[in-house]
């Protein structure tokens, strides 16, 4: 405990040099800079989100259209397969009365819907692969990180460096042997194959980051629990895990984001059954140029689940590390 000369405890936020006009000014300046950064960095995101609701000419209009007539053309393009109507048939097709809402919108563009696209299935594959691999890598990561943090594991430094080094080889190269290996093991184009690969891919990160967090939790807490008659496992579960929850949440979010967005492995190790969304979004290329609004719509659908998870875990992410409060 620190020796405090005043009766009111001085914390970072109420330090004596942190009051007065100058402090208020720098505080306002800091907030302004952060808000400005957030606004600037969100412009591309805003642009992408709005593009999902724009018609084809509006996406590429200059001056940029901030206000526009929203359309769901992009989503229809994303969720369907279409062919270009031959010029003579366009008017004739538009006259038909049996067209549904989506078909009529596409008919205006001279396109005919031939069936659903695979976007929904790909998104579902992404959900399965990313969630399973994230849970697995965080689970294994927590266990390994705890053991590395608390015990004098023989060859600890080398083992930790080995774990780290598994992330250093460019994926492009590992892909060739893994491709051959997966064909032999019948893991090519399966959910399990991708889940295991992403787990391996994320483990190094999970172990290193979690070890960083668990290292910071004072050993005294566990030792006290052990003195109270807990077993090591009980102490781990009831003392260490709750304290490490911030680190676990942060690791979870990052592993999820990596697995969710992974492109190279998914492209080269899946074809039909297990293909995830990232390699399929760029293939939403329409007849006559890139369909920006369809790509934007696909990206939006792809972004929403991650935002929901991050938002749900925001308290853990933003609370800072809980032991900060305990170490005071």
């Amino acid at each position, binding site marked *: 405990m620190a020796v405090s000369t005043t009766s009111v405890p001085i914390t970072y936020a109420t330090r004596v040099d942190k009051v007065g006009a100058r402090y208020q000014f720098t505080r306002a300046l800091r907030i302004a800079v952060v808000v400005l950064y957030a606004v600037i960095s969100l412009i591309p995101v805003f642009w992408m989100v709005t593009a999902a609701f724009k018609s084809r000419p509006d996406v590429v209009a200059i001056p940029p259209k901030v206000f526009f007539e929203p359309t769901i053309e992009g989503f229809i393009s994303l969720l369907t397969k279409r062919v270009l109507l031959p010029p003579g048939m366009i008017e004739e097709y538009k006259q038909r009365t049996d067209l549904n809402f989506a078909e009529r919108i596409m008919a205006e563009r001279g396109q005919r819907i031939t069936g659903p696209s695979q976007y929904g299935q790909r998104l579902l594959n992404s959900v399965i692969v990313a969630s399973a691999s994230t849970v697995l890598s965080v689970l294994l990561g927590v266990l390994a990180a705890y053991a590395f943090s608390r015990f004098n594991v023989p060859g600890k430094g080398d083992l930790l460096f080995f774990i780290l080094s598994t*992330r250093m080889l460019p994926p492009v190269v590992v892909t060739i042997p893994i491709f051959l290996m997966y064909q032999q093991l019948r893991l090519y184009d399966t959910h399990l194959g991708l889940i295991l690969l992403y787990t391996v891919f994320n483990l190094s990160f999970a172990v290193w980051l979690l070890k960083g967090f668990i290292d910071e939790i004072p050993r005294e807490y566990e030792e006290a629990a052990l003195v109270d008659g807990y077993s090591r496992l009980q102490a781990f579960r009831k003392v260490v895990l709750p304290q490490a929850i911030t680190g676990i949440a942060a690791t979870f979010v990052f592993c999820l984001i990596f697995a969710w967005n992974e492109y190279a492995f998914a492209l080269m190790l899946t074809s039909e059954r297990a293909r995830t969304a990232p390699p399929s979004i760029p293939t939403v290329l329409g007849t006559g140029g890139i369909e920006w609004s369809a790509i934007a719509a696909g990206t939006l659908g792809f972004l929403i689940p991650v935002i929901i998870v991050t938002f749900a875990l925001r308290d853990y992410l933003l609370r800072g590390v809980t032991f900060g409060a305990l170490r005071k």
Partner: protein
Amino acid sequence: MQLTRTQTARAHSRRSLTDVQIQVLFIAPTIILLVLWNIFPLFYSLYLSFTEFSVIKPDVPPAWIGLQNYNKLLSDPRIWQYFTLTGRYVVTTVALQAIVGFGLALFLRERFKGSGLITTLILIPIMMSPVVIGLFWKLIYNPAFGIFNYLIGYSVPNSGPDWLGEASRALWAIIIVDVWMWSPFVMLLCLSGLKAIPDYLYEAAAIDRASPWFQFWRITLPQVAPLLLIAILFRTIEAFKTFDLVMGLTGGGPGDSTELIAVHLYRAAFTRFTTGESSALAYIILVIVIAVSNLYVRSLNRIRGES
């Protein structure tokens, strides 16, 4: 500690695991998985790097040619040019991310109304897939209808710079996107480090009337350094391997002005299908990354030891 040991010993007598069993049980799954998924590909790639082989000709078995692939690569001046380019890219982009990310974390450290929302919003770029980001920034950088030039003051189409089309600008265009995307990652890790600094350090400094500079250099920076260095370490490794962003934005062009080593490697492996030679290049890259990471990890351990 002595007391703890007797206590744990007593606990073990009741159906509990010994510490050694826990170590093995907790670490083994990770190590086994990593060994299975890395050792085979690693050794197979090493073997292929000494051969003449192409994956698109599976009937032609790999032909052993010794060090020829390495010889060819190491005497090719273009390879060194791509390595230099990659080095410049890695140093610039990671340094900028560290400065921007750490700066943002310092500014966000004290909570204010809406700081949680701002932090979440700043994190959004990390959540988007690099490939999609590449595609989208291509649209944003487009000199005819992109908003980038419009926002920096060129309101007439095609009057501004062609960011991705000019050799002198293309690398910077990629760096801008990479910094935009990954600074929040550094920020988040630094933020959790900053919030963990115990207040009594500042209390003591305040009592001693230490200057803000002194507090920053002697308290804030050393305390955040471990997490900051982990962030930098991972960003460096990832930046060295940057490939999907470049493929989405420029494909290595114009000319070879953005031909980072990983992009070159991808082309050798999947466009020209010189599998043997690309495996050799991958090994050269691996050795360099390991060397650089080793230096990092050492300084990380040294800083950990001090604080």
